């Protein structure tokens, strides 16, 4: 701030003449407390005005003094701004205002507020409770469903596993050295028929491939026989609608001892099988 410019602006003169705003007055007071040149300029002007005013002095009537002295006799001076007393006075005034406000029916509104707050809380709690209850049943439902799903999954998994196991068994069986291939060839009735049987005397199991077997008539079913010591031994009926292309047969029970198997045959019996093979319906046979 260029002090010279400030002085030349005429603001100091305005201050003394009373032509500037209150804000500008504060500015001048502040500035002159900072800049001595400003203060000097100001006080010089003020002094000259003091002299000027002194020149036009008029002695006031004496009774005026008595009147004035009487006016101030019981009058309190204003407390100094910033003093402790003034602060106390201000605080008292402020407190009076607050008390006044509070006693103007604010008690009612306080209770109302409290009631409203309680209601809100209650509603809130209830809402929360209901929500939680709902969530619980939802949760339970979900749990049940989850369990079901889990079960299903487990079933499927074990199915799958079983299938895998089966495949592995079959594979093993097929690859086993002691497994022999036996072709059951068709009879006069069925000259083209050819059924492959894999037979393993050690494992006492046989595997049958359905490829060569045409689907039987509604009332018929294939049955498999082993001819042991000249007698036919029932190996069981074959599924009418096999899901798999091959089927394994456990011959453990049949081949208890090393016995002489002379032939394997498949006959076409009625549904459910027969206790003895119907030789007329011999489908395929192989001599071992």
């Amino acid at each position: 701030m260029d002090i010279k410019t400030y002085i030349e602006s005429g603001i100091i003169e305005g201050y003394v003449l009373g032509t500037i705003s209150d804000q500008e007055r504060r500015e001048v007071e502040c500035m002159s407390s900072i800049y001595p040149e400003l203060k000097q300029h100001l006080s010089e002007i003020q002094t000259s005005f003091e002299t000027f005013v002194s020149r036009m002095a008029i002695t006031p009537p004496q009774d005026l003094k008595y009147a004035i002295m009487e006016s101030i006799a019981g009058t309190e001076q204003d407390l100094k701004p910033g003093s402790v007393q003034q602060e106390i006075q201000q605080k008292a005034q402020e407190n009076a205002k607050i008390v006044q406000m509070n006693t103007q029916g604010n008690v009612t509104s306080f209770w109302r507020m409290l009631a409203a707050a309680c209601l809100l809380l209650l509603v809130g709690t209830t809402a929360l409770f209901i929500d939680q209850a709902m969530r619980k049943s939802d949760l339970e439902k979900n749990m049940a469903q989850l369990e079901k799903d889990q079960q299903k999954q487990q079933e499927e998994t074990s199915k799958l596993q079983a299938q895998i196991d089966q495949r592995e068994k079959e594979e093993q069986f097929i690859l086993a050295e002691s497994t022999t291939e036996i072709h059951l060839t068709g009879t006069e009735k069925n000259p083209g028929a050819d059924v492959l049987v894999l037979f393993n005397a050690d494992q006492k199991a046989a595997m049958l491939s359905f490829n060569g077997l045409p689907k039987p008539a509604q009332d018929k079913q294939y049955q498999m026989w082993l001819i042991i010591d000249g007698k036919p031994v029932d190996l069981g009926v074959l599924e009418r609608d096999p899901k798999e292309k091959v089927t394994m047969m456990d011959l453990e029970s049949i081949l208890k001892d090393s016995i002489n198997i002379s032939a394997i045959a498949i006959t076409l019996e009625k549904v459910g099988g027969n206790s003895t093979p119907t030789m007329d319906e011999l489908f395929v046979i192989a001599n071992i």
Partner: protein
Amino acid sequence: MNQRDLILRLQQGDELAFSQLYDSYSPALYGLISRIVQDPEVAKDVLQDSFVKIWKSAPSYSFEKGTIFTWMLNICRNSAIDVLRKEKKDREHKIQIGSDNVYMENESEMNVNAIGIQGLIDKLPEEQRLMIDYLYFKGYTQQEVADELNIPLGTVKTRSRNAVNELKAYFVITVLLWILKHT
């Protein structure tokens, strides 16, 4: 008792100190108030009001604010200008109603003014003297002066500044001369 002690005692509610202050400064202050409001009765009321204000607000005065004389001077001038403005408002109202008193009041006003500024007639160019008159003694704003005299606001500002500086120069010399004379 020196001035400083007087003021401190005044601020503590010492009525004797107040009385002494009144004795010292009331003539100058009464003279100023009279120049502004003109009517003696009104001037007496304004002086009384002013000194009551001085008594009450004495604790808020501090030496940083300047001399106690200037401080009191401002209180008195402000009170007087307020009265003047109120009177002007009433007068304007009267004009609207159509009172006959208007002319007479204007006359006395001019006379007193001439006396008041007479000491300055040969000291300040008239244009500057008018500034002092309107701004200091009549409480006009600079804009009001510009409107009244039909001159630009800038001119008012320049002239009033010059007037104050001229006044200052004059009275500083006067004080110096007085000091020289009395030592």
